[in-house]
């Protein structure tokens, strides 16, 4: 399986580490117990298109948000998360 890292280019998936369900947004630290329980413990776990978080541990260490099909393993999109995303978009805009 190959993931197209926006920093390094196309790489074999063994360079990346799966960081879990990427469709969740981390609640604010002072959110209540129910919100954090849902974030930490509950998953939709779809059979099909799934948003995931990966870390390019064997490369540039970027945190990536990947859309992938959990049946065919087809990867639809890969984008950076966090501050790198803003800088990347700004430069892509030029």
């Amino acid at each position, binding site marked *: *399986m190959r993931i197209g890292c926006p920093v390094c280019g196309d790489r074999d998936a063994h360079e990346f580490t*799966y960081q879990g369900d990427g469709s969740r947004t981390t609640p604010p630290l002072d959110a209540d117990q129910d919100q954090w329980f849902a974030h930490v413990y509950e998953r939709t776990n779809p*059979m099909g298109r799934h948003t*995931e978080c990966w870390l390019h541990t064997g490369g540039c260490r970027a945190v990536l948000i990947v859309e992938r099909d959990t049946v*065919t393993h087809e990867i639809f999109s890969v984008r950076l998360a966090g501050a790198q995303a803003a800088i990347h978009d700004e430069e892509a805009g030029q």
Partner: protein
Amino acid sequence: MALRTSRAGAWVRCGSVGEACSSPDHANGNGGVIRTASIFLMFLRKILYYHHICELWIIVVRGGDEALILTDRYSVLSLLGEALRGNRGWKRAWRAAEPKPQYDVVIVGGGGHGLATAYYLAREHGLHRVAVVERGWIGGGNVGRNTTIVRSNYLLPENSRFYEKGMTLWEQLSRDLNFNVMFSQRGTLNLAHTPGQMDGYARRGNAMRLEGIDAELLGREEVRKMVPDMDYSDQARFPIAGGLLQPRAGTARHDAVAWGFARAADRLGVDIIENCEVTGFIRSGERITGVETTRGRIHAGKVGVAVAGSTSEVMRRAGIERLPIESHVLQAFVSEPLKPLIDTVITFGAGHLYISQSDKGGLVFGGDIDGYNSWAQRGNMPVHEDVISSAVTLFPNLARVRLLRNWGGIMDMSMDGSPIITPGPLPGMYLNSGWCYGGFKATPASGWCFAWTIARDAPHDLNAAFTLDRFAKGRVLDEKGVGPAPELH
């Protein structure tokens, strides 16, 4: 002792002996004479069997080459008898049942756990109006895809007590089911490579012994005597320091477990319905009262869901969108068939690898899940490299042995690595899931406990801790201590 006739033949439920003796339909199912004769002979046989006089089977030769075997029990005698007649008398292992409109209990999922549940519902709780509906063919899911290891060497008492119940069931399963599941108690040896790991195994082994489970802590030389072909040279990157052995653990033939439970359940009246996918649930108010399937509506007083890796999708059809479960692919490998080479089950402590040799001679092994969600029942090559480099590092003589086949199963990884066997989450529904790597070894215990939970509408002590709401309460059962990360269990 209930006498119940169905279209094709006489069923006789045989009391407490709990073994199935009945003669379901035979090929052309005609004639009253056959039926009365078979009931009389059944009584005769029952009496003889009850006094444990050797197995008696009677051949009634009725004209032409059609013959009727009155007993359908597997045994060396029935094997010899059939051999003389060109093996034409064997019955279907389980009937190709047509779905009836109403059952007391419908089990969704024809894997090991679903079939075992149906069997124990009938045998332990006298519930015969039970159906198992399977989307494809029984035994096609994880029960047919695992590395066949059976053990109860767990740390936490909630887990070790449950899996030890499984061990006691395993030890008489072939006779219970009248089907050789080939449970080979050749021992499971977890290798340690550092003092710290030895201490960890000491804690686990002592916990097992306190729960009355067999466990031995072996030093390096004892391990070497038991498994001489591993690498004890100074070239070993992580020298073997010792290991934790559970002598009663071992392996079993996975397909035989599915077919054995199916046949035994069928003999107790359970309908096994293949190619029958559940597309939705019938509800009255909040209560689940049946299932919509590709072969019509089936009403049921109670619905048990035991679909392992497919849990999230099936429960989504009951309106449950989110569960503490992720489906991950776990790959397994088998080598070409070889003369006896590895005589026990071994797990490598410095990488994720478990390996044993099937009775047919193939080395059966596996290691980590691929690490990303997957419903594909296949994985990718990095796991091959990790698992096989561990195998060849542990057994340097395996470099020349060849890999013959590689496949994958869908693991229902729970948030703490322990299973869920519980009433709910909706009224009339019962959930059995969260098996991670441990589903196969749990098959009998899971079936037994899930049957109890369904029949009594309340968990047995053994699965009382395996609730769905334990996570919200913080009462997690985290064997490996890696927290709410399904891909790490």
